[in-house]
């Protein structure tokens, strides 16, 4: 009797193989739809897909995929923490941008030497993200303001605020006619890892951080008391209250954790490649996180797969241009994947019920002596 939304947001779990079958089904379905789109546009789909895969399996591109996926995964986790509690933190986007800006200027000031500076930058980012998110939490618990509305507003405010802060007489410095924060000194750059042979490009060191965050997320939610309370609140607030959960405190805690994770989103870019926050700093990653959290049903492994897929699609889209296919096709594909994932989960859900019923009737048909009800 779970509702459709419960299933979409992963509040109802699938066990075992089905957790893998559903997304696989979705990707196949999305590929079919995209093929139709390609055919209509007059391109042979098989060739398009082969060139996507060929392009995407080059060592150089694999590194790109991993690096993109790292960022996307962190964003998805930030969103998912809220989703599991029925909190829609749409404000991940603003949280990570503001966090990255402030952390970048702290890092650029080189207050502490070397690797300590990395730690400092990351901590500042998490703190700023958490603080910015906690505004929405406080509004919700004291004034009952929906976090959807407040975080959307806070996104807009964060955009204005970063623009205002990133001017020459405040946090920005002019170099040529570009403006950015003072560059972070070289001794505080996150070292890369030469994981993929055949290319001089290095995998961003934050991949490790993302993996740790993913494990931490899974353990926190599934194995701890705090996680139990968080999931219980997401499933039924009145029942959680009656069980002794302080829901207001949970709202604040979940928002703070979500915001702190959001603070990490900008770090791979800041400490691994740009070393400053400028107008070129990537935006919109928070919304990508929402799509990937949906795709992975807020499950750590699911989101990791989703993030890799997203990274693959993004970095391989150049291959399409080589074939003179519009790059936007990838955006269509992403949209179709999210939709078909939702449909696939629904189908798998129904299949499971039917399969279980068949099993029951088969078992009953065999020894007819057990009396009805409790089989």
């Amino acid at each position, binding site marked *: 009797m779970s509702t459709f939304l419960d299933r979409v947001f992963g509040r109802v779990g699938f066990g075992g193989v089905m957790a893998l079958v559903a997304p696989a089904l979705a990707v196949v379905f999305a590929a079919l739809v995209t093929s139709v789109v390609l055919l209509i546009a007059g391109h042979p789909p098989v060739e398009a897909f082969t060139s996507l895969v060929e392009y995407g399996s080059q060592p150089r591109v694999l590194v790109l995929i991993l690096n993109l996926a790292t960022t996307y995964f962190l964003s998805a986790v930030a969103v998912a923490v809220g989703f599991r509690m029925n909190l829609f933190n749409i404000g991940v986007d603003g949280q990570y941008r503001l966090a990255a800006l402030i952390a970048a200027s702290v890092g650029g000031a080189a207050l502490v030497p070397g690797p300590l500076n990395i730690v400092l930058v990351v901590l500042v980012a998490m703190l700023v993200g958490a603080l910015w998110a906690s505004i929405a939490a406080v509004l919700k618990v004291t004034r009952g303001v929906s976090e959807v509305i407040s975080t959307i507003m806070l996104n807009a405010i964060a955009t204005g605020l970063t623009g205002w802060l990133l001017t020459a007489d405040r946090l920005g410095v002019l170099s040529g006619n570009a403006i950015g924060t003072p560059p972070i000194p070289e001794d505080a750059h996150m070292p890369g890892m030469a994981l993929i042979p055949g290319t001089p490009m290095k995998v961003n060191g934050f991949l490790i951080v993302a993996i740790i965050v993913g494990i931490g997320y899974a353990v926190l939610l599934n*194995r701890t008391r705090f996680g139990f309370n968080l999931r*219980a609140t997401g*499933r*039924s607030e009145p*029942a959680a209250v*009656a069980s002794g959960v302080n829901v207001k405190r949970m709202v604040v805690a979940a928002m703070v954790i979500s915001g702190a994770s959001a603070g990490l989103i900008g770090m791979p870019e800041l400490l691994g490649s740009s070393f400053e926050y400028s107008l070129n700093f990537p935006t919109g990653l928070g919304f990508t996180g929402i799509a990937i959290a949906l795709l992975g049903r807020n499950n750590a492994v699911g989101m990791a797969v989703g993030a890799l897929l997203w990274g693959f699609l993004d970095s391989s889209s150049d291959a399409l241009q080589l074939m003179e296919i519009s790059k936007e096709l990838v955006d269509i594909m992403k949209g179709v994947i999210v939709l078909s994932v939702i449909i696939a989960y629904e189908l798998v859900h129904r299949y499971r019920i039917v399969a*279980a019923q068949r*099993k029951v009737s088969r078992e009953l048909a065999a020894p007819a002596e057990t009396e009805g*009800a*409790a089989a």
Partner: protein
Amino acid sequence: MGEAAITTAIATEPAVELKGITKRFPGVVANRDIRLSVAKGHIHAIVGENGAGKSTLMKILYGMQRPDEGEIRIDGAAVSFHTPGDAIAAGIGMVHQHFMLADNFTVLENVILGSEPRKGGLAVDFAAARRKIKEISDAYGLGVEPDALVEDLGVGDRQRVEILKVLYRGARILILDEPTAVLVPHEVDELFDNLRVLVREGLTILFISHKLDEVLKVADAITVIRRGTTVASVEPREVTARKLAELMVGSELPSPETRESTVTDVVTLEVSGLTMAASGHGPVQKGATADQLKAEGVRLLLDDISFTIHKGEVLGVAGVEGNGQAELVEAIMGMRPITAGTISLGGADITGWSTLKRREGGIGFIPEDRHRHGLLLEAPLWENRVLGHQTREPNVKGIWIDRAGARKDTQRIVEEYDVRTPGIDVDAAALSGGNQQKLIVGREMSGEPVLLIASHPTRGVDVGAQAAIWDHLRNARAAGLAVLLISADLDELIGLSDSLKVILRGRIVGDVDPGSVTPEQLGSAMTGAGEGA
């Protein structure tokens, strides 16, 4: 009484005929080859143990679930329902065991939800709806107020709203799943009067109940379901309650008699001057006494309530639903702020404690609404075992959830309390209502509570399971448990309680001696008619 059974002229076709209905769920066959024929204009009762498959059968008839096999005939014509919408179109309406009203909507909005009357095809015609609701409410004496907020209604009122909602959609065949479980005797009588009016108008009623004497009182025909299949169809004239119970479970009717008293002179719970103002009066001065508040015209939900419960004592609170019982329970559990008064547990002042701290202090809680406050429906049974005991053994070790410990203890509850389930990994939603209740009782009796707040502890459980729960309560009481018992079942209240108080409009209006009072006397005391025995 006897002449209550109303038989209309011999109907040509049965209103409802079910043939060979079979329905399987993962791990369970809920219905197996069910045969049932309901005559037009009859009140047809369906009885059976918890998990026998009654609700499932009714949901099939109402189009909420599709049968795997079998045939449904309405007025002689074969039908196939895909959604409740189809069933409604065929004139079938259902009031569920667990109410399905939207809390923050008014009665009017709830009733018209999904079938809004349109003015000129566009705007919702509230005036017409309000008129129609009034008409129906008056015609059957339901006393439903269209503009009340559902949130503010007691369970009894909610039920009348549910019935009205069904009538509003033009139902001719009415399904009521355990309608009387939530009602006190005189409300039951009122409901039965309503039902008799309905059948006189030619409606057909199917109803499920675990209260066999009621079934005998009102039904024209009775069908017994056992382990998913129909085992007997009987005339109420031909059977006794005892015989029915035997047909259902093969056991005799239990009685909730308490034998020797185990009351000690150690005070477990002491409530004094407990007062709660209704919301909507703006800020109320905290700590103001009940009298001061009343002088200011503030409506009180709880009005200066004081009582003590000793170790080994069951204190019963009798009252018509909605007279402050829910507020009293939530105040003691710390789920709702109080305006004045103190609560102490075993000598410690717990007035300022959080719900968690109170639970950790040894208060167990069986909530009145198991779906709202008692369970995570979409979570497996073992996670539901953890709920409410998130900080205690055997569910946790430090900050970690102890899965193995929780699972093992869930298994224990399933066995000790006879929860009929295919396993502890199924979702709570998959259990029948009575089995959900057994799980909750088992959970709340775990961890040796010192005080149990029990709202309708045996609501919806069958006679056999009811006896078992009473035994568990009695044993715990003998071991020193103090119980605050709230129940609509007056036999249960009188039989289990060591002392009894009557609550009316948020006030304790009298003490009753459970040793000498009869259910009739108690019933009239509850409405304020008697002087409290």
